[in-house]
């Protein structure tokens, strides 16, 4: 395997893991936020995780689009 293929594969794997982590964080975040534990810090932590997860999903989606566009344009030149 060349280094180039390795990096490309790694990027794909990292993206997949990123989406899975987003789903995990989404679940964990809601679980913490909705947990019947009357400790504010835990609920607040759950909300932080949710916010980060949403931002991560945003960056993943935008990044996939932009990088695909860049490679598409570069391959057309």
């Amino acid at each position: 395997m060349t280094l180039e293929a390795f990096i490309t594969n790694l990027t794909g794997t990292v993206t997949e893991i990123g989406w899975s982590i987003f789903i995990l964080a989404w679940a964990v975040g809601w679980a913490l936020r909705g947990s019947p534990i009357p400790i504010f810090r835990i609920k607040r932590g759950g909300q932080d995780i949710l916010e980060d997860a949403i931002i991560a999903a945003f960056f993943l989606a935008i990044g996939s689009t932009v990088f695909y566009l860049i490679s598409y344009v570069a391959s057309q030149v």
Partner: protein
Amino acid sequence: MYNIFDILYYAQLLATLTYFLGSLIYGLPIPIYGVKKWAPRLITDAIYVIVWNSIYLAVLSFLTQLLDMLGVSWSNYEIWLNQVLNFEEVLYAVLKVLISTLNVTEAGMVLTIPLGQLMSILLTIITYTESLISISNLIYQYVGVLIALGILFLAIPFRIGRGAGGAMIGTSIVFYVGLPYLPQFLDNLGLNPLNYSVSPSSQNDMYSYFYQQVLPHLITSLILGPSIYIFLLLAFSAGLSNLISGYGSRLPLPIDLY
């Protein structure tokens, strides 16, 4: 030989990897600042590299434009370097002939003893000029490759190559624009070895004239002057490298949400 556009392609691949690593870390459900702080950093680093990738050709043409604005060119600089080297070689040849002529008689041999030192100093000066020529050729031929390699180093995830990349980009930019200005710099200081004037000898003692006037002038104009200029350039490269790789390189985008 490295292909510049291959290097830029690899930089793009690495930047993509960096970006997705950053997004992955952003989504991690681990509320530890030490881990999470890497997320916006990695994303901004990747965007920064993509910006460098896109403006790469513009940077190169801007460098040529800067040279034009300074009114200097690499071809004139190389001609100047060759003239300086020529001048040194002629001096060397004259001295060599003088020494071998004096060596014929025993009385003359005594006179050649101080000339030996002059010879060795002259050889040092020639070596110095040759080094200057090779450094200049290196910069002139490889400026594109060096900048592309710098971008590649910038693209390595977790800022591993950030210092090295910034240093490579900064140094090659500063030296590519700065080196051809060396003749003008020496001219303005009155140190250009090609048109200096040493006050004529007022005494009959040829040796002390040589050692007190000519030699110091040779050393000043051929070693010290260029050295001062190269140190100046190095200082500028350090500043530019810092600008490229340091905290000054943050993007004006509100990605950092902490």
